[in-house]
């Protein structure tokens, strides 16, 4: 399989990468103390890694190219497919039950620290599902999603700080304000083509962050808002420990709610319009679908979840500042959607857990987290643009008499 010319090619590639990374990986100068540090080991590592990577790259690339020319159309697989789904359904149900049961027991077995981590992961699950509506289903690349997250967080922070409003009052209010922002920002930008839309949403995200950073009278600037109230249980103030568990259960409920809503939306008239919009805008309009309205609804709905999670985030950490809402946060949520598979609920959920928990549990990994996210985006686009779990479409069943479902 591996022949001489391949090895030669890989060697050349590895030499090229050693050259390319030489100044940045090998040399480190301290300009003040005038000390030069030579890290030759890095060069060897880069050389070895790129040698191996080039083989893997070639292998997968050839495989992908080959896969393209082979037709995947199955003519007789139709009935088998339906049976499969029926089987899967039973399996899925028991799987879901086990998952649910372990989620319930979890906080009573593990420490508050662990519970907190899972809560964070759940927040990202919901954020991922929210962004998935916009990017995955409706195909609108939103790079400023974090802005709506910030809007939610600051809604709670400010309303709590100034008016003493509680968590339960602000949760819907924050969602609503974020949705309003979604529509407000959405209106002018929705005429734009895909890549311009991406840049403009990025711009909006940054505008909101920088404004929060500089408008001291409004948002207390970079120092942020502290001492935000935790959610209360029927008016009871909870201890730190039990508050963590309480928030954990709230998040479980919210996640289930989100999954439920997204699933329902996906297989509805609105969901089909979003999908159609992603697939072909012109054909979509020709089918009588109002482009503007459909885009706006996706934008607003995506923003709603971000707003809700913003409130949740503020309540969980009791402290917010603009540094939590940088573009990197948007990029991370986007990675979740891309890795999970655009449009797939289970994929996005799994990806959020992997991407949030991995750096938490592999401390060594957490330094490399953003590096890893960047690489994921590139590699996924090249080798598996449909994500790890491709969004399977719902199969409709009609009986032999060709009647309804």
């Amino acid at each position, binding site marked *: 399989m591996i022949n001489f010319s391949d090895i030669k090619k890989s060697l050349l590639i590895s030499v090229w990468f050693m050259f390319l990374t030489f100044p940045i990986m090998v040399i480190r100068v301290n300009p003040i103390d005038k000390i030069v540090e030579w890290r030759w080991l890095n060069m060897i590592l880069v050389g070895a890694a790129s040698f191996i990577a080039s083989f893997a790259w070639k292998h997968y690339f050839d495989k992908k190219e080959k896969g393209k020319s082979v037709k995947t159309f199955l003519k007789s697989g139709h009935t088998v497919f339906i049976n499969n789904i029926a089987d899967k359904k039973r399996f899925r149900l028991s799987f879901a039950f086990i998952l649910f049961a372990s989620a319930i027991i979890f906080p009573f077995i593990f420490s508050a620290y662990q519970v907190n981590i899972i809560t964070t992961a759940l927040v990202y699950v919901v954020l991922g599902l929210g962004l998935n509506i916009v990017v995955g289903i409706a195909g609108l690349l939103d790079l400023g999603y974090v802005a709506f997250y910030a809007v939610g967080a600051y809604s709670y922070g400010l309303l709590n700080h100034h008016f003493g409003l509680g968590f339960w009052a602000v949760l819907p209010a924050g969602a609503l304000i974020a949705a309003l922002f979604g529509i407000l920002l959405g209106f002018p930008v929705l005429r734009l083509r895909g890549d311009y839309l991406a840049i403009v949403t990025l711009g909006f995200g940054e505008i909101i962050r920088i404004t929060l950073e500089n408008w001291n009278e409004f948002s207390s600037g970079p120092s942020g808002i502290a001492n935000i109230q935790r959610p209360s249980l029927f008016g009871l103030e909870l201890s730190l420990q039990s508050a963590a568990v309480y928030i954990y259960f709230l998040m479980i409920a919210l996640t289930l709610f989100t999954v439920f809503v997204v699933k329902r939306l996906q297989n509805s*008239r609105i969901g089909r319009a979003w999908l159609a919009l992603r697939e072909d805008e012109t054909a*979509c309009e*020709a089918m*009588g*679908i109002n482009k503007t309205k459909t885009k706006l609804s996706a934008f607003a709905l995506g923003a709603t979840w971000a707003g809700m999670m913003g409130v949740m985030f503020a309540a969980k950490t009791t402290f917010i500042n603009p540094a939590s809402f940088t573009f990197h946060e948007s990029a991370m949520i986007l990675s979740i959607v891309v890795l999970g598979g655009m449009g797939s609920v289970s994929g996005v959920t799994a990806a959020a857990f992997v991407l949030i928990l991995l750096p938490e549990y592999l401390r060594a990994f957490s330094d490399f987290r953003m590096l890893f996210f960047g690489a994921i985006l590139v590699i996924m686009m090249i080798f598996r643009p449909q994500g790890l779990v491709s969004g399977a479409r719902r*199969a*409709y069943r009609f009986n032999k008499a060709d009647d309804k479902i």
Partner: protein
Amino acid sequence: MDNLLSVNGLIMDFGGLRALEDLDLHVKKGEILALIGPNGAGKTTFFNCLTGIYRPAAGDICLTTPGGSMSIAGLPPHVITKKGIARTFQNIRLFPNMTVIENVMAGRHCRTNTGIAGAIFRGRAAVKEELEVVERSYEIIKKAGLARYVNELAKNLPYGEQRRLEIARALATEPLLLLLDEPAAGLNSRETKELDMLISEIRDLYKISILLIEHDMKLVMSISDRVAVMDYGKKIAEGRPDEISRNSTVIKAYLGEEFVA
């Protein structure tokens, strides 16, 4: 008058280039009208004006619906579809990653109105409407002979079936007038014959008018009630198929002068 669609003095320019010049065309209720002409004569441009993708520079497009006559020139595409004009595209534009039935269901969008709340809470009205959408869509799919592909992704369909699916999807919008842009392009003769039957069936079953652009003369001659010929953005002839095939202007436009032997 039993005109479903009347186009008067339609003009369309592209940066100084006149693509349509003072075009008049009338489609009667229940007829199949074929629009033929050499490549670049402006046929597809005309379709794009009718469906709102282009905004004509001048002229009037009038559609007679059960609710009365109205001008539709310059309206946005989704509104025009709702008024009753549906179309297919010259180079198939399906929703490739949606299933066959979802493609057709997307066509039902403009005839239904469940909103976000309805989709989430699935009230009685929403469920009823969704059931109706599924049923109607399946009905159309069966009619188009695509029943065995219901849950297949559109992109996995053979080419000929994709053409039929596009027609099915357009039909789901309940049009009064169906525009078909070269429906037989790329089909073999068996598939073309099947398409011939499908188009006539659709007209009889749904009592709609059909305007089609086509290069396959056999198909044009066999299914159309009338034929209009375009050249250089102008209508150069109109009449029954047998008249058109004898018309010397048409032969000249199509085959060059010397062919008129």
